[in-house]
């Protein structure tokens, strides 16, 4: 197990009226990529601000590389590449001016990596900062965060405003960073996004950390769900008697959803040869579904 790089230790920040984050605990190991999901206003940005040392938690501590965030904000900032949730640039003229100014602050002399990022994202940094579209601004912010090659990367909803093609390009870049062994924390309100990229995903709801699950566990579940539609109701009825675990049936469509162990898939397909099947598709177990189940459980418990 790699040593923890980011530690959130029972952190709370109470803004009153039940708003804020409450008793969060989370650890991110070196080289791990953690996704942070939750609806708007659930507390993702607040947690990140605590991590960055911008705000002081009302309880608990955040540590980055062993240093407490709030008291050592300037030191840990050197090791973190941060893309903030709201893109607001300082009062400079062009994207290039901004990138140069940031490079100066960071003490970065070699702009080659920055230039390769710019090319990969198809960004024209000569454009005026005020003139840029949201997507361009987002790209510029991403370049600024990554260009110094920091070991830790924190991204607060980095793909908002990017078109699907650019989102793909971004994902490619992040994966490349991860391949270099960077520790990455990415927050998003889109489940699909973190599903694709992250090692682990944590769910926040109303300021509480509900659950964190590794994508491997989700992707490599021992069982799978399949939905099968039959052409005739006779087949539909017959199949029901085969003995598979039925999850759901929809007689009006002659559809049935079954849950089988992975090793039984071959057996399923062999037996289906004897049926007149309209279609068969896998009902993938998604992160969303997982979290829905978790929430339902919590609600039941409460």
């Amino acid at each position, binding site marked *: 197990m790699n040593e923890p790089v980011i530690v959130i230790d029972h952190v709370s920040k109470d803004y009153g009226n039940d708003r804020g984050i409450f008793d969060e605990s989370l650890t991110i190991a070196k080289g791990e990529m953690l996704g942070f999901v939750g609806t708007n206003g659930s507390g993702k940005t607040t947690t990140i601000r605590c991590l*960055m040392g*911008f705000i002081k938690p009302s309880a608990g501590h955040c540590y980055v590389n062993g240093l407490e965030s709030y008291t050592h904000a300037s030191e840990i900032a050197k090791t973190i590449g941060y893309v903030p949730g709201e893109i*607001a640039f300082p*009062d400079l003229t062009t994207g290039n001016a901004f990138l140069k100014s940031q490079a100066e602050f960071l003490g970065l002399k070699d702009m080659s990596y920055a230039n390769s990022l710019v090319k990969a994202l198809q960004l024209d940094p000569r454009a005026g900062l005020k003139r840029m579209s949201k997507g361009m601004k987002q790209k510029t912010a991403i370049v600024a965060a990554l260009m110094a090659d920091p070991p830790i990367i924190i991204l607060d909803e980095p793909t908002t405003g990017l078109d699907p093609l650019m989102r793909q390009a971004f994902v490619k870049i992040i994966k490349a960073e991860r391949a270099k062994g960077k520790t990455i924390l990415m927050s998003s309100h889109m489940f699909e996004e973190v599903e694709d990229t992250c090692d682990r995903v944590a769910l926040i709801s109303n300021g509480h950390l509900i659950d964190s699950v590794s994508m491997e566990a989700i992707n490599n579940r021992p069982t799978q769900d399949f939905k099968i539609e039959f052409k005739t109701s006779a087949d539909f009825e017959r199949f029901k008697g085969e003995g598979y675990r039925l999850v759901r049936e929809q007689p009006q469509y002659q559809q049935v959803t079954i849950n089988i162990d992975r090793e039984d898939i071959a057996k399923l397909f062999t037996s289906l040869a004897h049926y007149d099947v309209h279609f068969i598709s896998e009902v993938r177990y998604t992160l969303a579904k997982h979290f829905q189940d978790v929430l339902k459980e919590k609600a039941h418990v409460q």
Partner: protein
Amino acid sequence: MWLVITVAECFMLSCVMTIAGSGNISNVKDAVEDTIVQREIDASVQKRSLSYYDLGDSGLIAFDQYYVAEYPNDAKDATTYATNFDTWAASKPTQNTGESDSDYAARVATWQASMPAASTLPEKAYALAFNTWSNAMPKASDYSSQSDYLAALTAWQAQKPTGASAAASSSFYTATLELEEATIQQAAKLGYTSDSDECKEMLGAVMYALKPSSDFNDIYTNNSETVPADYDVTSLLTHLSAGDISTYLTSDERNTYRQDRSENSSAVFLGNNMTQPATITKLLDALSKYGVSEEKYESFGYTYASIKHTAYSTEVSFQARYDYELSEINKKKAAGDYPTEADYQAAIATMKTTLTGDLSQSLLASLPPEVASAIEDVGQMDLYSLIVGSVFFKIAGLLLPIIYAIMASNNLVSSQVDSGSMAYVLSTGTKRKSVVFTQACFLALSLLAMFVCTLITSCICWSVVSVTNSGLNYGRLCLINLGAFLVLFAISGLNFFTSCYFDRTKNSLALGGGLSIFFLVATILGLFGSPVIPSVVRFDALNNFNYVSIITLFDVISITDGTTAFIWKDAILFAIGLIGYIVGSLHFEKKDLPL
């Protein structure tokens, strides 16, 4: 933004300073001031003329009395002596035929030795007069014809001095000395030593009225005046022998003679005095506080002729009114209004003082005190300092820098937090402390640079304009610019604090910017109630606005007056600014940043 504002500020300043210094701003005020000054000089001339007149007239009255008292004794003395002398003179030996010259000379010497000794002044006067007369005896050889010689001889005989004539001249001399002594005593009573200028002035007033000899002719001849005749003692002698001297001394005829003589001599004396270079220098020194230069004084036109005319007419008016008032008092006395002689004399003295005061009243003294001080205020108003110091550097010239301070302090901190761009600076590993310290230094130093520019501009403008009678100089201009900078330091400290305290720029602007503009507006209103505005147009109630603005701590009046009150006030401004910066910075370092 700094550049635009500094350029605009310096441009405004140079316009204000050069236009205000062009010399046309204060025509009305100058006219008021000139009028006041001239009336003051006039009043002083009138007062002095009356005092010279009084000295001269009472001096002549005293002289008459001394003379009349002295003459009888002198006459007796001289006549007695004259008789002895004449007897001796008649006994001059004539040369006998056959007598040798040396014998004759010896007999003459013996005779001369027996001359009656002249011990007292009248005797000496007679002896001297007799010797002069006898030496003036015409010689036959000087005249062409016998009849001419005889005529000259007869005329010479008629001029033979008598005891009376000797007494007349000795009494005159004695009386003159007595008068001089009396005047010196009078001066001593007033505290003037005998060698002081005041004593000399009093003696002059008396002696020029009397004009006992040709020594005193110089002021008349120097000013192309006809020299007055010698003082008339012949009438005194006439009336002495007629026996009605006391009536004569108080008669209208004698009074008029004395008054006319005094009026004339006093006017000439004063005119001469006041046009002496030494006197003019003294006068200019006294008037320097009103900013009267030599050219200006000359433009007032106080020449010998004008001063003499003023003095003469004042004296004549005085005498005429005095006679009238005295007759009124005498009527009252006859009616029994004055129980004792002391009351009567007191009434006369009071009347005299009032009359003198009336005729020599200055413009300001003749007005009610509030009006007088109001006019004096207008006259003494230092318009240039008002415009440059109070109007520009406390109001018009602070507006642009205050706007800059408000905008800059917000741009440097709160708007970056508000928009979130502060995150980029902090994400590079820059400490909050160094961020806020850099911003604070930039704000304060940019304001300092702005006021260094205005200082340079004001010094250049000051060297170009020529303004007299103003409380400004280079040193004070430096202090004024420093004071203005400290005001901005305090205001920027306030705005820096609100900028660090609030996350939203609008809150910072509302509080910091709102307060700053409020201070400026309060100072504008307060100007109309402040002491720099003359009391005629001042609204005293508006002075209360000065108490709610920190700009009041910039004390321009104290700087232009040269007092030190502005020092502690400047220190307070500095402290306010410093506290604002420090507390704001500390708060920024500790607070939550929504980035």
